[in-house]
């Protein structure tokens, strides 16, 4: 059962009466009368067990994009029902307003639409559906809560897709489709074609020209069909919050941008999420299906508060890759990385593959370094400077082992990694 505000308002009528009578007895009797009316109302309300409900929920939505979930309600009873229905969701699903008015004649149905604006990546689960049906006096009524599971997968935002067009243009510059052609490392022989005025005379293939009656030039294009393996760290360091979101969200953004770019460039993309076990593995998917598969599989990932197992990760990488490949490791490079065995595990991997580390920095550390408020700020600045120096030292040790290291704040990491990929590709180091 439940009470409505009308019952409260009606009780309040007793206050002036009691004051006028200088006695609480009329108020007590008035409340007793209202209690009786509430009892009548509850007994007289239609049964919520004659109301059938069904949820119709979209399977997925991109973060920050609005969507709508529907609750279908049908009155199977013999009486008209008035009241409310609540379509409850987890708070970060952003279902608002979740309460709807109900007014259904016998046999009628209605579709209640709840607008949603998710505020967090991952699987959002629906709560129960609650029905409130008013009694004839509208003072009270009956309430029933129904379990009705539903899930909405909130996909990563992929805000970094705004960087994609400019990176694709750079890729075309590398590619034979563009006017600027360069030969050398990082490009492979594409084909022979007839010389047209304007071609670089240095690219004339004299041997082929000798065999034919016309002048023939060689064309080049960037390497294709290289393997790119993106290893997303989901361990402890991925859980730390930078600004308002965990580090993992920034690395997922970088993964999506790099995957989109690399697949457009004709490379084969594999993605592995790892902490101490493989949390997600997307491999052998190419073309249009890749991005949706990535978004879907990376969406429910949550960081775990574990020490990462880098040796195990290196083993997984070896197992997946036959030929030389680009291994992109998205994590955090800090003093703790040495302790967790990152250097030891990466050294052998860097001999066989090109390893690129994309490290997500905390911009707050930079602010702390320059903070000069009082003495305690100075001490904090000292600690922050020490942290930066240690991180720079670790990055230096990694570079000496042939590992490329790029680092940027959460917004900048995706384009930074994409640029590093283009640089390596142009240099033919894939």
């Amino acid at each position, binding site marked *: 059962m439940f009470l409505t505000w009308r019952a409260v308002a009606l009780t309040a009528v007793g206050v002036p009466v*009691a004051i006028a009578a200088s006695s609480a007895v009329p108020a007590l009797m008035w409340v007793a009368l209202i209690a009786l009316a509430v009892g009548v109302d509850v007994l007289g309300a239609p049964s919520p067990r004659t109301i059938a409900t069904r949820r119709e929920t979209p399977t997925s939505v991109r973060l920050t994009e609005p969507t709508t979930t529907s609750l279908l309600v049908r009155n199977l009873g013999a009486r008209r029902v008035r009241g*409310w229905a609540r379509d409850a969701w987890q708070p970060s699903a952003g279902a608002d307003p979740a309460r709807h008015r109900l007014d259904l004649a016998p046999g009628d149905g209605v579709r209640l639409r709840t607008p949603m604006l998710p505020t967090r990546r991952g699987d959002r*689960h629906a709560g129960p559906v609650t029905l409130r049906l008013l009694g004839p006096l509208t003072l009270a009524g009956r309430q029933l809560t129904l379990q009705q599971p539903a899930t909405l997968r909130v996909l990563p935002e992929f805000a970094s897709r705004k960087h994609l067009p400019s990176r694709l243009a750079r890729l075309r510059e590398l590619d034979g489709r563009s006017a600027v052609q360069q030969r050398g490392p990082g490009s492979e022989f594409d084909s022979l074609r007839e010389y047209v005025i304007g071609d670089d005379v240095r690219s004339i293939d004299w041997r082929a020209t000798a065999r034919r009656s016309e002048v023939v030039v060689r064309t080049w294009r960037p390497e294709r069909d290289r393997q790119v393996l993106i290893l997303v760290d989901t361990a402890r360091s991925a859980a730390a919050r930078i600004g308002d979101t965990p580090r993992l969200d920034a690395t997922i953004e970088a993964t999506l941008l790099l995957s989109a770019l690399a697949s457009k460039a004709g490379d084969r993309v594999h993605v592995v999420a790892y902490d101490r076990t493989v949390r997600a593995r997307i491999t052998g998917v190419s073309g249009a299906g890749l991005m949706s598969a990535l978004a879907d599989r990376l969406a429910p990932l949550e960081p775990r508060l574990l020490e990462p197992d880098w040796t195990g990760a290196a083993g997984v990488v070896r197992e997946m890759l036959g030929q030389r490949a680009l291994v992109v490791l998205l994590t955090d490079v800090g003093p703790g990385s040495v302790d967790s065995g990152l250097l030891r595990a990466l050294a052998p991997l860097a001999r066989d593959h090109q390893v690129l580390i994309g490290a997500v920095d905390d911009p707050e550390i930079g602010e702390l370094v320059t903070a000069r408020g009082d003495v305690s700020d100075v001490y904090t600045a000292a600690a922050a400077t020490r942290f930066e120096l240690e991180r720079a030292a670790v990055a230096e040790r990694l570079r000496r082992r042939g590992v490329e290291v790029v680092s940027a704040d959460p917004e900048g990491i995706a384009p930074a990694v994409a640029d590093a990929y283009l640089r390596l590709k142009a240099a033919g180091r894939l």
Partner: protein
Amino acid sequence: MTRTVTAPPGWTLGDGSTAAAVASERWVRLRWISIVMSIVVIGVIVTTLAQPSSNVTPLSTANAGDEGARAVAQILRDQGVEVDEVATLAEAYRLLDGSGTLAIASFTYLDEDQIASIGTHTGDIVWIEPAAYALSGIDAGLAATVPSTSSGQVEAGCEAPAATRAATLTDVRAAYTITGDAQSCFTVDDAAAYVEIQRDGARPVHVIADGALFTNASLTTDGAAALTLGVLGHDSRLVWYVGSVDDATLLAADQGGSSALTPAAPGWLVAGGVALLLVALVAALQQGRRMGPLVTEPLPVVVRASEATRGRGMLYRRGRARGHAAAALRAGAASRLAARLSLSHSAPRAAVVSAISQHTRRDAAAIDSLLYGPPPADDAALTRLVADLDALESEVSAS
């Protein structure tokens, strides 16, 4: 009549329970609490209705029991006397306004000043069974003696008008002796049960040794009614003082507070308060019934990435690790300066110093001591060092 409805495929209809099952489960869970609560509520209502606006204070005009004095007040009201019960002397003063009868029916303690202030009242003053310590304050000649109780009728034996009208009293307690211009009435073994003290320019003071005369139980016996109504009914105004424990006021106009504690609230306020309380209770029930349970959600960790660095800074400070802090700040500044001046990461100290010195035209020794000098002695020195390092860096990057 029950109608059986079935859900269409894919729809949810009910949760498998029935209203009766839910109700009986709730009843089983809450029966003891609800039974006890209803007994308490019914008990409160019954007692409230059975004795409306009554109390149990002895000699109170609102007390309808054997010990109360409601009958006296009722009879006087019927005779056109305005009767008001008060708990403080200040209130009595306000109601009396200089004339009328003041009856001191009962009190816990009155000090000399209070008794003296009562004595200044020019209307009738009726003391009912005053304690022995108060007697000398009422009249210098009044004294307590061994109390004795008559077994039978006692004659008035005096000329006080109220006493002569009463003529006889039965089983009366007597306790006072009096000297001077006064009437001793209903004497038992030299102790008087009623004393009337004449005053110049004022109505007399009446002292009655037996409060039982005024009670509802014994008012009808013999001359009790005649005596009590005689002493109380002279004026059309009667203020009946039943002193509250904390009454510290005087029978006078000029005083700060009427009572140490708050006086009894007026009836309408109490009734309104109770009614409001009921409204609050109903509102709480209405708001407290949630429309379905809260939906929980596991949230990510709330520790910020920079937390460890801040903690380390605090450790530096608490441990007064100025050496460590200064070393870190110097190393950071040196590495930034080296990068700015395109020196290699591992450039030796002398090379860094000379490069900066050339760039800024500053003294090399000063730069060397700034970047590689001894650790600062105190926090002020550390702050100065940071300021100097910042100045050097901005100088290098500006040029």
